[in-house]
């Protein structure tokens, strides 16, 4: 029991495992690919980790040309208003995922993060924001509360 707990703690530690995102303490989370369960019976605590299937699995586009990254292979001209695509590259707080997780090429990663910034500024992804933020874009301050649009050709890649 204590060994398992130690193992999970060791796994959680950002310095021991490179490639892991740092993880603060979560008591419950309904959506995670790796779920950590705690079962308490009498005076033993069992902590187990299991890998859940991803919700994205059935809707994943097949990469026709696996040599290049998924965005290049799709051949799409992604705009900053395509929030259903851009929301796939961000965390639930609206932060861009790093390249080791998105698996995009350097050029597309830079382009996608610029497009995500544009979508956030235009208030098109108000539900993907830090929990303490103001969810309604119309309640922003000064010039930020009005609608704005962006020109994708201004992105330098």
């Amino acid at each position, binding site marked *: 029991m204590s060994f398992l707990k130690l193992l999970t703690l060791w796994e959680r530690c950002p310095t021991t495992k490179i490639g892991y995102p740092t993880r603060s303490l979560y008591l419950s989370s309904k959506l995670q690919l790796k779920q950590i369960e705690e079962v308490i019976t009498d005076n033993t605590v069992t902590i187990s980790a299991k890998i859940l299937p991803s919700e994205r699995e059935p809707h994943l586009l097949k990469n026709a040309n696996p040599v290049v990254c998924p*965005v290049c292979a799709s051949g799409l001209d992604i705009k900053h208003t395509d929030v259903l695509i851009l929301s796939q590259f961000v965390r639930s707080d609206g932060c861009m995922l790093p390249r080791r997780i998105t698996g995009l090429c350097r050029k597309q990663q830079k382009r996608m993060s610029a497009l995500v910034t544009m979508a956030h500024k235009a208030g098109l992804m108000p539900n993907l924001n830090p929990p303490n933020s103001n969810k309604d874009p119309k309640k922003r301050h000064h*010039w930020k509360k*009005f609608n704005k649009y962006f020109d994708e050709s201004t992105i330098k890649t």
Partner: protein
Amino acid sequence: MSALKRVQQWATFARIWHVYDAAWQNPFHSAKLLKKYLMGLHKPIYHPLNDCGDHVIVINTGDIALPEDEWKKRAYFHHTGYPGGASWTVAWELHDKDPTMILKKAVYSSMDGNLQRRYTMERLHLFPDGKVPADLMKNVSNQIQQIRPVPKRLDHYSEQERKEFPKLIDYPKDYILR
């Protein structure tokens, strides 16, 4: 004059009422479009001395969109005529005070600087939201197509739409979602 010709005569010279939704539209690009309808430039009978302009009702002028940081860069100049009477108002401040003013000024300055534009502007009816008096709305017989597509916010899509949309990337197997 036959009945057909008479109806054609009425249809040619009647003033048509158009409606235009300015939500997420650039006011300066919209002004170029609306100007044609207001002055009657889209009609084959157009002549500067021929009073053949149409009425345009513009709704949702409070939701116009400007590119990038133009809300804080574009300034509107006014001078009272007295010494030290100059003032510069930034676009977002003007829009805070009157949500129809930016579009009104854009249409006015898009037309040539003769006195006829004062009368042409009388045919432009601006409303900051969708609330239009019923006696104006009953005249409308045409909708002017918007220039820019209106973007849809992510939280206005249903949970199922978001879930079933084709995904470009999947998480690594050991990724802890948050």
